[in-house]
């Protein structure tokens, strides 16, 4: 799995200019995003996290707080969600990721 710190693509550097909404932060003031990963019949993750990593046609990518609005089709990969207690990994066959205003929704099996 790609290391979130070393595989930053151009996508992660883009910042939503209109992101006026107050960001979610942890106890140390580090910004977090809301992540929801679900399929038509099951929810795999629905909570806050520091980042989420996946793979699309371009290659591995990470979504960090203040990411630009983004929609991508996901390739078969392991989604890596960095949370306070470590990381949570979800193996997927395909999906669609939607990122907007520090909220990431991953639709699986579609």
């Amino acid at each position, binding site marked *: 799995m790609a290391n979130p710190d070393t595989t930053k693509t151009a996508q992660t550097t883009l910042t939503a200019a209109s992101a006026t909404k107050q960001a979610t932060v942890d106890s140390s003031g580090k910004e977090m995003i809301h992540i929801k990963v679900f*399929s*038509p019949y099951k929810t795999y993750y629905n909570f806050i996290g520091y980042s989420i990593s996946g793979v699309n046609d371009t290659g591995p990518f990470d979504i960090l707080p203040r990411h630009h609005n983004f929609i991508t089709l996901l390739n078969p990969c392991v989604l890596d969600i960095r949370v306070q207690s470590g990381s949570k990994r979800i193996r997927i066959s395909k999906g*669609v990721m939607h990122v907007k205003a520090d909220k990431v929704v991953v639709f699986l099996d*579609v």
Partner: protein
Amino acid sequence: MRQLLDIDKERSSMMTIVQLTSAFETLASMRISQIKNQVLQAQGFFDELWNIYIQLRVDSIFRFGRHNSEKVIDKELYILITASGGFSGDIDQRVINMMLEKYDKDKQDIIVIGHHGSILLAQAGIPYKRFFELPASDHNINVEPLIHEISQYKNSFVYYQTYLSLMSQEIKRLELSTAIKQYSSMAAENKEIISEQTYIFEPSAFDVAAHLERSMLQITLGQVIFDSKLAQYASRFRAMSAANDKSKESYSDLNTLYNRTKRSIRDSQLKQIIIGLTR
């Protein structure tokens, strides 16, 4: 004496039937509840996906996920969803009868899901393009081969049985493109536009829109198959419930007959003893 043994044997067979029908009734009722939950969960998923799609699309034409360059068969596709076995009463025949009201072999092609439907069509001499088995599992139904077929036609209609309640099921005809638009309960509420000016797309906005169309088609078809299965389970539940009541009644009759016969044998034995004593 032999008669008593026969009644006893019949009585225990009837008890087995009572237990079996009761088990099948419980099983059908459990499946109904599971499928109902799945349908509700999928509705929420579909709504969120639809909300993105509606903000993204540039016109109101639903293209079934195909590209503009792809050739379209100038016919309609009729999809019939029927049961896999013959225990569904006349409901499959009703699905076919409804389809035949509009069917013209030069204007429509047929795809049938469920073995029973394919047999009924063959018996009636109606040709069909493809046949799929009704999925045995109630989870992760793969409808991709069906979507591949649908995307080749200009429009598609589904004929299926739908669940109203445990006691009533009805036949429905559904135009897929309209159904997908109507399926969302939160359509057109969010008027924000998703475009290349406000979003990054990978691989492209068109590919994402086409993918979302295929995905929503996939969910809608899955839901229709679930609805059909729900109706079949309800029909089975009703049949099992009636069979259970009937077998309980028969068991009670046999039990009474057994006790009466046993008593009469005992009475005649007593009578013989008394006659022997009085001599």
